[in-house]
Structure formats: C-alpha cells, structure tokens
C-alpha cells in the first residue's frame, strides 16, 4: 500500500481530480496549504510599508493506492498538474503499513 502525496497549484486541482478518476481511484483527500520552494512569495504595500508574504498558497492532494500501478498514478498526476513554470509543486510516494475503514473495520485493500 502506498500513499501518494502531491502539492500542486490550486487552479490545477480540478485537472488532477479528473485525471485520477479516469484511473478508477475511489477517493482522495484535499487540503489547503502554504509554503515555498523555488517560487518565492510576493510583496504587499500598506501606507508605504512593504510586507513580504513568504508563503504561497498550494493544494495538497493525498491518495491511497493499492492494487494499481503506483507509477501510473504518479505519472498521470504529474501530467495533470504541470504548467511548466516554477511553482508547479511536488509529488512523493510513501509506504503505508495499514489502512482501516472506520465504518466497517475492514483492513488493507478492502478499506481503500
């Protein structure tokens, strides 16, 4: 079992969701996050005082994967999220020991 986590540009969320659903993935979790990488923040001016806003808003997408090709999921996600400009984000894959469906208590593949 793998957890695929992607931090992407907010306006790309719909594309990512649509691409992942073509692979038949049953669900995903989305959260609004802030951070910075090579893309820096911006400056704002209030009555002549400049404020640097370091963190850029992004969307984090998390999807549990088992029984399908993880590489295919990652490639599809990367294709959908790419604009080719700085700030497109990152995708990483981690191993997951166990998953439990809260309602039924099912474990592993059945719980995804």
């Amino acid at each position: 079992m793998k957890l695929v986590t992607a931090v992407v540009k907010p306006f790309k969320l719909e594309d990512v969701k649509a691409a992942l659903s073509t692979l038949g993935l049953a669900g995903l979790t989305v959260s609004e996050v802030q951070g910075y990488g090579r893309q820096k923040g911006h400056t704002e001016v209030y009555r002549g005082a400049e404020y640097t806003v370091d963190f850029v808003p992004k969307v984090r997408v998390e999807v549990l994967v088992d029984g399908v090709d993880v590489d295919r999921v990652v490639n599809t996600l990367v294709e959908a999220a790419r604009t080719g400009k700085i700030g497109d984000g990152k995708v990483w894959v981690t191993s997951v020991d166990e998953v439990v469906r809260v309602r039924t208590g099912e474990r592993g593949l059945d719980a995804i």
Partner: protein
Amino acid sequence: MDSGDTAWILASSALVLFMTPGLAFFYGGMTRAKSVLNMLMMSFGAIALVSVLWVLYGYSLAFGEDAYGGLIGNLDHLGMKGTLHELSGTLPVTVFASFQLMFAIITVALVSGAIADRAKFGAWMVFVGLWATIVYFPVAHWVFFFGDLTTTEDGGWLADTVGTLDFAGGTAVHVNAGAAGLALALVLGKRYGWPKERFKPHNLPLVLVGAGILWFGWFGFNAGSAVAANGQAGVAFLNTQVATAAAVLGWLVVEKLRYGHATTLGAASGAVAGLVAITPACASVNPLGAVAVGLIAGGLCALAVSLKYRLGFDDSLDVVGVHLVGGATGAILIGFLATPTVTGILTSDPSDGAAGLFYDGGFSQLGKQAIAVVAVGLYSFILTWIIGKLIDKTMGFRISTEDEVAGIDTTVHAETGYDFSGLGGGGGGAAAPSTQRPLVGAGVEEEKP
C-alpha cells in the same frame, strides 16, 4: 427660532455621531484580526463616557460664559441647567449642545488609533474622561466659543482675541487629537515586534466602509458648522466634497509614484486626509481653493505616514500622519487661500471678509492660523503626555506582552471578532471543542441537580 436651521442641525448632529462608529470601522479594519474588537470598543467607550460628561459639565466648560481670559467656560450650566428654554442664535441651545457633543466624542475617539492593540480598556476609559475634561473642553472653548455678539461678551481667545479661522475644527479637533496621539504613542511605547513584524490591516473592506461612513457624516461636521441652513453651509458642503475627492487623487498619485501601486488603503486614507484638511477651511476658500487644499493634503499626508518608521514611534494607525499633518495643513492653508467672497459670504459687503496671502490679505491671517496650530498642538501634546504618564504610573496603561501577543480581544474583552475555526473555540487558535455553560450572576441560586 428658525425651524429650517434647527432641522438641519438636528440632522447634522446625527450625521456627526455616525462618524464615530465609522471611525471605529476605519481603524478596526486596519488592526490585526486579534485586536479588532478592542479598537471598536475604544470608540464606543468614548461615545458612552463623553456623552455623560458633556451634560454633567462638559457643555458648561466649553460653551458656558467665559470664566477667564477666553480660556474656559464657567460652571453656570452644570447638568445643562438654564439651557432648556434658551436659544443659541436661531436654534434651541439643546440642539447646538447636541451638535457640539458629537465633536467632543469623535475628537477623543480619534486618539485611540495611536495606541492600537496594547492599551488596557479601563486605563483608556480613565484617559477619555481626563482628556476630554482637561484638554478638549477648554480647547473647544478657545476655538469654537464666539461669545455673544449682541452683548459683546468675550469669546474663546483664539476665536475672539486672535481671530483664527477654524470653521469646523482643524485645530480643536484634528491638530488636538493628532498631537495627543503622538504623546500617547510615546508614553505607551511600541507594540511588541514593531516595526520588524507584520502589522498589516486584517480587513480592508471594513476600512473602506468606515471611510465611506466618515465621508458621509463629515457633511454634518462641516456644513453643519454653519449652525444654519444657509449659503455658508452650501459652500462648506461643496468644498468638503471636492477637497476630499482631490485628496484621494493626491494620495494615489504620490503612492503610485513612490511605491508603484495605487492601493485601497491609500484611497481611504486620502479621503480622510482631505476631509481633515478641509475641515477648518471649508468656509474660507472657494471650490478651486478646496481642490488645492485636498491635493496638497492628500499628497503631504501620503508622505507623512512613513515618518514614524524613520523616527521610530509606533503611532499605529497614523493619527499623526493624517490628523496632525492634515489638520495643520488645512489650518495653515487658510492663511494663503482665504478669500473674502467666501469668508464674507454672510455679510452684505464681501470685502469685509478675511483674506489670505494670495487674496491681498498679507501675512496677517497666516500668523493667526499659525498661532492656533502651535498653541493647540503644544497644549495637547504636553497635557496628554502628563495625563498618560499619570495613568501609566498609577494603574498602568499597557497590557502585558503575553496578553498583547495572544491578542487583546480575548485577553481583555473575552471575545473574538471572527470565529473561523470549525473545531470550536474562538479565533482559530484553540483546537479543543468549546463547551457552553450559562454564567450565573451573583445572588442567583444555582439549580440543584
């Protein structure tokens, strides 16, 4: 009694009262989210306390017959005694007193912008009472009390002896509040983290709402100061509009050139700077003069608000940069731009009116204006500093750094302005779900389980 005049001043009084909630929004939007309620409360606290003091003795000190040398009124009208059936000009005294009360309220409230985020509410309320009594009531007597022209009774020393032109309070209200703001900012000191940390406004739409309410209410402030529904009120009204509009343009041009952006906060600040500057001058200059006053004040205040960073005092919401600088600018410009066609608008011969330097009046009026700016500014600064220090040494004026960082709304008022947290609790900080329990007042028996 003139019913037209009375009706207009009754309406103007309500307009001027409305300015203080407007100011509360204007200021409140500029603070951080964790101190918006305290900012609003300082204005509402001023409304509550100053109103009560006004009928107790404030009106009498400001507008009672002169007690000594044009410096302060006597105590003949304590509790509004002997005023309920009298006339002031063409109005009932009660109407004039209501109108002037609203000026006292907003002048005190203006000062609060200098000490955002960090003043004990109790200490602020004590300050409101002392400052209104020791600073505002006498200064209002100096500037706004014209005595009784029929009996040649003495008026306030600036209005009567010096001959300063201050139609609606550029000195008595704005220089006064601005100098007090500077003194109080110095007494309380900088906010924790200022100027390194970010203190950006948390709600600019609220700032714009506030500026809009101020602009609306200011027609009562300026045109109402004619204390009649006449041609002078008309000129003051038109001048107020065009000066404010010009000041918005002035501020935006300066900040676009200096910082590269025309901002929302700049537009709101420019409007207020223009309103402040035209306040003393609205019945002394013609509409073209008003445009000049607005452009100059808007541009100058846009530059003045960055002074605090260079000089290192935390006048949090720019009471100095907007009100002291704007008020002084408007008052001084009268010395240049006052024209007899406007100053003499109520006389049969317009050449009777006072004239500024640009209208063949020489330096005489300019000198009278400068005296008022310096006298009011110095008196307010010194007395405010003393009052502030007294409060600070006795009951303490500032909240603790820990409370300030946590946010004055929760630590002082036990409330939060915005509840964004889906997890319960207020202010987004608390992760634990909040539970509600009714507070049982003293003397109320709790129900036995």
